[in-house]
Structures are given as C-alpha cells and as structure tokens.
C-alpha cells in the first residue's frame, strides 16, 4: 500500500513538473506574440487574391514562415483524458493557436524586412509530422504560412 502511495506521489510530481514548465513556456510565448503583433499592426495582411482597392502593387514576391510545435506532457495527458469523454480539447487548441500566430508573424516579419507593405493571398497549412521518441506522444504539428508580399503605394 505504502509503495503505491510513493509511486503516486512520484508520478504526480513528475506530471506537475511538466505542467509548470509547459505553462511557463506558453505564457512567455503568448506575451512575445502579443508585442510582436502590435509592432506589425500597420501592415496589410489579407487572404484575398487582390490588393485592397486603394493600393497599387509595384513588386511582388513569395514569402513564407513556418514553425514546428509540440504539446507538453501535461497537455497530452489532459487531451488523452478528454479523448475518452469527447468535447473540446482546450489544451491542444492553445498549442495550435500559438503555432499559427507564430508562423504568420515570421512570414510578416520577413516580408517587412524585405520592404513589403502588404501581404495578400495568405494561406495557412497544418500538418502533423509524426510523433517523436517512443511514439506515445500525441502530436508534433507543423504550421506553414505563405503569401505574396507586395511593395505597394497608395493610389492617390
């Protein structure tokens, strides 16, 4: 009996450790994303095929950003439990949301560096690239964002 308790304490501290580290990484990442998104607020980002009517494009090139992201052990456990009863997997939602924002930001930052003022026809693609290590991991996903960067000027 006491052995069982020791094992339980050991396991729960293990899980708590991953929860804490995962949470810290997540919070820091979200803060980082917010400040970078603010810095890019002047740029036109759309997923339409044409430039907004008041802009004229002068030069166009392809631009892309990608990120590979994994969920931490705690999230995986939470998702595994959720998988039994069904419903929203909030823990995994936040991972993919962060990955998408990061990919779009990388693309937009690269475009800005190259002198673009607008990014149009943005496409987002998500794919799982398999599980790492022993294969019991739930997910590693890659998010790719790509679009056409424009050097544009106002019409009038």
């Amino acid at each position, binding site marked *: 009996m006491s052995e069982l308790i020791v094992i339980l304490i050991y396991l729960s501290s293990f899980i708590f450790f991953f929860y804490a580290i995962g949470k810290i990484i997540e919070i820091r990442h979200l803060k980082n994303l917010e400040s970078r998104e603010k810095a890019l607020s002047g740029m036109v980002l759309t997923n339409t095929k044409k430039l907004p009517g008041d802009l*004229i494009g002068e030069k166009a090139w392809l631009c892309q950003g*990608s990120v*590979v992201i994994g969920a*931490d*052990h705690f999230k995986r456990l939470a998702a595994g439990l959720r998988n039994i009863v069904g419903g929203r997997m909030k823990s995994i939602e936040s991972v993919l949301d962060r990955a998408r924002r990061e990919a779009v930001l990388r693309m937009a930052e690269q475009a800005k560096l190259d002198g673009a003022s607008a990014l149009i026809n943005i496409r987002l693609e998500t794919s799982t*690239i398999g599980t790492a*290590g022993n294969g019991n991991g739930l997910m590693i996903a890659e998010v790719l964002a790509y679009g056409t960067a424009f050097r544009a000027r106002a019409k009038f």
Partner: protein
Amino acid sequence: MILTNTEEIPGYRISKYLGLVQGNTIRAKNIGRDLMAGLKNLVGGEIKGYTELMKEARTEATARMIEQAETLGADAIINIRFATSSVMQGASELFAYGTAVKISK
C-alpha cells in the same frame, strides 16, 4: 524568376502559360535531431531542429520546381501552393506546385 501565390503579377502581363510545374522532397528526421526533439517534446513549445529541417526541405522542393520552370523557359511561377503529407512514421513529403508563365511588361 518571380514567384507569387496570386493569379496575377502586378505591373506585368502574362503572355504565355507554360503549364504546371512541381517539385517535391521526402525527408526523414535524423537521430541527433530526434534526440533533442524528444527531450523538447516533454515540455512542449517550439521544436527548432524540426523547424529548420522543414524549412530546408521546403527550400529544396521550391528549388526543384524552379528548375523545372527554367527548362520550360519561364520567367515567373504564379499561383504557387505548398502541401505536406506524412508518408510514414517519422518522414514527411513536402510538395510545391504552381503554374509556369512567360511575362511581359
């Protein structure tokens, strides 16, 4: 070579469509990177080794597409799309395709 994922290129007229061009590559993750990724995978967050790997592979696929367009005598590739699929455990295929065109001012 001008690359875009839109159907037109501003400031240019498309004078001739040369057809579909494509490039692909299949990459498997290597042991060194896999070890680090396995560790990183415990705590979550970005797995930089894999991001680099995918970036390299995508550049390779794009380069093959461009090569194909060059043999057709194209000046630009329009309407480019990227696709990714995992073909087996631990390996994925990256695929880029677009339409090769000749352009004039």
